[in-house]
């Protein structure tokens, strides 16, 4: 079985060592590089081309989000997981916009890291359960306090299906294949989806789906 090659970047040696020990206890993971700041992380990533880069959000020289942006631009096949202390959606959205596929709270990193790496390696998104829970709660509270319509109800079942697939990071082509529809139809549905939800980027759609509990 092929090992998943991992880059670990965190400015705290203790944290890095802990994560490395954790990963090395699973034979399917191999830590191929370590970095103690953002710049180094980018360099190491370019040198080793890992399958997954785990980046702490708060690092000197270049923070995790900016490092993610650069790594994503240079190595689109490297999946990125952001490690963060912040459970706020602002950070999550920013991480997604930077190209991260996973967002992990440091508190629960040791429990969820394995799942997160596996998920993003498999091409899916991953969020710490606390994040998902919080986002969903926020959404519910907003609906309740504002008395706003739940825009999710405006979606047709086809659109909901496509939303779910989009959030699983499937391309339009893949979705067309899965649903057995033409690419043109998928594109039209997707435009409607953006329009109805008033969300105009994939990260926002992903966040929305998380809040709605659409993703698994």
């Amino acid at each position, binding site marked *: 079985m092929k090992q998943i090659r991992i880059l670990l970047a965190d400015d705290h040696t203790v944290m890095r060592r802990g994560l490395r020990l954790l990963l090395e206890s699973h034979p399917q993971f191999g830590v191929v590089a370590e970095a103690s700041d953002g710049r180094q992380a980018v360099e190491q990533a370019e040198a080793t081309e890992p399958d997954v880069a785990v980046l*702490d*959000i*708060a690092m*000197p*020289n*270049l*923070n995790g*989000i*900016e490092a993610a942006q650069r790594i994503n631009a240079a190595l689109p096949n490297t999946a990125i997981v952001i490690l*963060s*202390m*912040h459970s*706020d*959606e*602002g*950070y999550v*959205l*920013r991480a997604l916009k930077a190209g991260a596929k996973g967002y992990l709270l440091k*508190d629960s990193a040791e429990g969820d890291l394995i799942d997160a790496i596996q998920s993003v390696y498999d091409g899916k998104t991953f969020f710490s359960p606390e994040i998902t829970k919080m986002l969903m709660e*926020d959404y519910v*509270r907003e609906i309740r*306090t*504002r008395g706003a319509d739940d825009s999710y109800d405006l979606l047709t079942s086809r659109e909901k299906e496509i939303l779910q697939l989009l959030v699983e990071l499937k391309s339009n082509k893949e979705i067309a294949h899965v649903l057995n529809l033409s690419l043109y139809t998928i594109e039209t549905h997707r435009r409607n989806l953006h329009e109805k939800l008033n969300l105009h980027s994939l990260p926002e759609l992903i966040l929305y789906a998380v809040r709605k509990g659409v993703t698994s």
Partner: protein
Amino acid sequence: MARASRATSSDRVFFRSRFAMAVGFGGLLAIMALAGVDALNVLHQFRRKDDRIRRRYLSQNHVLNDIRSDVYVSGTYVRDYLLEPDTERAGAYRASLEEVRRHMESSLEAYRRDVAPTEAQHYSALQVELRDYWEILDPIVKWDPAERRRSGYAFLRDEVFPRRQNMLELAGRIDALNEQQLDSGNHQVVALLLSFQTRLLLTLLAALALGLGLALFTMRRILNLEEQARLQYVEVAEARSQLKELSARLVQAQETERRSLSRELHDEVGQALSAVLIELRNLSAGLGVRSEEQLRRHVETIKGLVESTVRVVRNMALLLRPSMLDDLGLIPALKWQARECSKSTTMDVTFAAELDSDELPDEYKTCIYRVVQEALHNCARHSHATTVRIRVRQELDRLLLTVQDDGQGFDVQETKGMGLLGIQERVTRLGGKCKVHSQPGRGAILSVELPFTKGNQEENTSAYAHETNSHPVG
């Protein structure tokens, strides 16, 4: 802007009053100087005229006296000549008589030079009389001693003495006229003095009136200035005491904050870490002794303690300075704040932003963030509001922030809490303005205006980038 226009208007007032005072004092001095020059001039005229009148009188008088004494002396010489038997002596008398005649004629000529019109008639009469007198005397010069002895006395009695009397009378009349002249001259001088007196009186009255006006004006100005100075002093004193109070309260607030931080560090973090230490000791003591189940319980306890400690530390760090402000910028930080506030209070907090770019200079971000924080804190504590609306808007040359609640409101004049003072302080430091509109029962609007230009922004963007790159605290 307002200060500048106030300065120019006060400058104008100062300029106007200075101008008025210069004109007033200048006028007063000019009038006084004029009066002085006039007085000197009049005195000079007076003295000259008086002098001239007196000198003329004296010289005419002197000439008349000369003529009179010449008349007498000539009579004496005529008599001595007529009565002198010795031819030689008579010749000497005759010579003397000739001399007197010449002297008299020159005197008469001298008088003629300065004869007054009123005297002209008497003067020409005197002239005729004198000429006749000398003409009468002419023949006797040729008389021989016998003839002189014979008809000399009769000639004296009949011709010389009456004529002499006549002449003396005329001279007396002229003398009287001359005196009259002196008198009228004196009258003229007195009239001159009188007219001068009137003029001087008028001048003095004008000076007095002007001086009085000037004094009133100056007094009013001084009183005004005094009042202004007093008001300014009161203002300054008030501002100073306000500042003092503010700084005292700031120091107090700082102390309170430190105390709560210290307590939190000690009570929460310190205690939890101590507990972790104890549990770890238990754990290491129990290794190999206790069952795995027991050990796991210890580990779980430690995990729980550390987790809660991490939470406490993070909350403290967020309270001190939300790293989000540095990592994500103002708008996400404000959104987060609105969300957090909605979560932790009963208020529904909404946030809307119209910004060209989120990359504001650090001090602006901090200022707006803290102002919103403080305002939300105030709303949560005092207003009983159900909704709070936060808006940030960027205009051409300024940033506008409003925080509006629908709470119970308050009297803006009477209530000035620490929070508002702190907001004002922060806003003023950036050269901005801060206003609160509120009435009891009608909610409150806090509006903040910060001067802000694009150049300002670009200038600071590099600093911002540098900071985000350096080391954001996570």
